[in-house]
């Protein structure tokens, strides 16, 4: 049986996703990555509904890499929904976006984001940043135990 999803990437830019996944795989960091292209799908995945109704809340990803500017439901709304529900509020969420607007930073942190990273424009820096994110959340960090999601923390 395959392991659960370790990283959920929510980003509508296919090219950025490909570069991100490539960097993670190259660093041998993630075998179980799932990608969604908009906020609605991200919410379906995280709340185990729609196409993902067979998922279970206790199989939460170790980290969500969340882009802010996405079609339908933007990243801030996804973050708000995740933090607003006891079944999902403990999931580590890292904003990984192009924007470094003051407003986005403030809103994300006020909603309880775990980290906020601006995608570097330089590819070498980008690759390093993605590797570090993967290394930290999948190797260094101790993920929330399953019980966290089974009943309200």
């Amino acid at each position, binding site marked *: 049986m395959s392991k659960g999803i370790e990283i959920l990437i929510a980003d509508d830019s296919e090219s950025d996703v490909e570069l991100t996944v490539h960097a993670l795989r190259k660093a041998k960091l993630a075998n179980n990555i799932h990608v969604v292209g908009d906020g609605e799908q991200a919410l379906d995945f995280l709340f185990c509904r729609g196409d993902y109704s067979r998922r279970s809340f206790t199989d939460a990803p170790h980290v969500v890499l969340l882009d802010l500017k996405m079609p339908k439901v933007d990243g801030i709304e996804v973050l708000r929904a995740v933090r607003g529900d006891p079944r999902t509020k403990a999931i580590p969420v890292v904003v990984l976006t*192009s924007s470094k607007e003051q407003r986005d930073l403030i809103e994300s942190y006020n909603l309880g984001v775990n980290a906020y990273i601006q995608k570097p424009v330089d*590819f070498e820096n980008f690759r390093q940043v993605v590797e570090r994110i993967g290394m930290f959340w999948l190797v260094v960090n101790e993920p929330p135990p399953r019980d966290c999601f089974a009943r309200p923390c």
Partner: protein
Amino acid sequence: MAQHIGADHVRAAESIPMAERYRLLIESAADYAIYVLDPKGVVASWNAGAQRLKGWSAEEIVGRNFSAFYPPEDVAAGKPELDLARAAREGAVRDESWRVRKDGSRFRASTVLTAMRSERGELLGFSKITRDLTERAKLTEKLVERTRALTEANADLDSFSSSVAHDLRAPIRQIAGFARLLAEDYSAVLDAEGRRRLSKIETGARHMGRLVDDLLALSRIGRQAVVREPVCLRALAGEVVEELSPEADGREVEWRIGDVFVARCDASLIRQVFGNLLSNALKYTRPRAPAVIEVGAETSPRGERVVFVRDNGVGFDMRYAPKLFGIFQRLHAQSEFEGTGVGLATVDRILRKHGGRIWAEAEPGHGATFRFTVEPPPAKEKP
């Protein structure tokens, strides 16, 4: 000779009786309506300026009450009488309000109504001086409108350039990223020329990336407020040198950080100033061993507190100094010294936002010195 003629004129003026001299003076004041009222407000004298401003001739108006100059609503409210009473009580009344001309048209006027009293204090009447503000008001209105339009255009331009720069980041990263992956995974199927061309794509994309990030930093400064707090500039320069030290790896660099004052300025912005100036100094001293980079303070002839950053690098020709702080302006070839031409424009913008300024001095082959202030010049002497 000139003095002689001047003296003649003075003598000629002195030959005119005092009262006549005043009459001539008042008569010749074409831009001011100057006239006298009796204690009840009846017009007693009238000058050429009054005729020009208000339209009545002396024959038409002398003997009539000055309430004719007020708009009907002011007359109904008893303003003419109130003004007279107040001038009599307080000595003078200054006002800026609407007045009417003979043809009924209105104009904005600045007026002074002054009580005239005899030596014994008895009220003799009033003097009235009126100036037409219509022209000034029109100009002010135009100026306000133009300033508003200009501010708007500037803000538009700023948000346009920042959103363009912002949206360019993703495609630039993708070009650079896929070029890199191509070079890493497929270099075996490319010949030497193919690999050379690929590396050109990477170099170009990397440069474009830096350009876009520098532009974004520049436009952010435009929107960012200056938050002043006491900042030890010496410590700040020291921190920046610390950050730059990896770039100096493998080179012989002598940093001389002298005593610099504490100034009230925005620490994060002035850190960018030191960052730009010191990394420039490091870059342009690359051919030197040892490179000597100095930071210090001095007082300008105007009494301003000045910080300087001096290096013994390649310098530049002072003929090009005016271009130094312009955006995208560079004095060196990309192949010689890399750069985007945005750094010094950013520095200049930061310092001007602080009320300070920056200037430079250099000689080709003999280093450069940049001097700047982070505070407005001392109040008594304006540049």
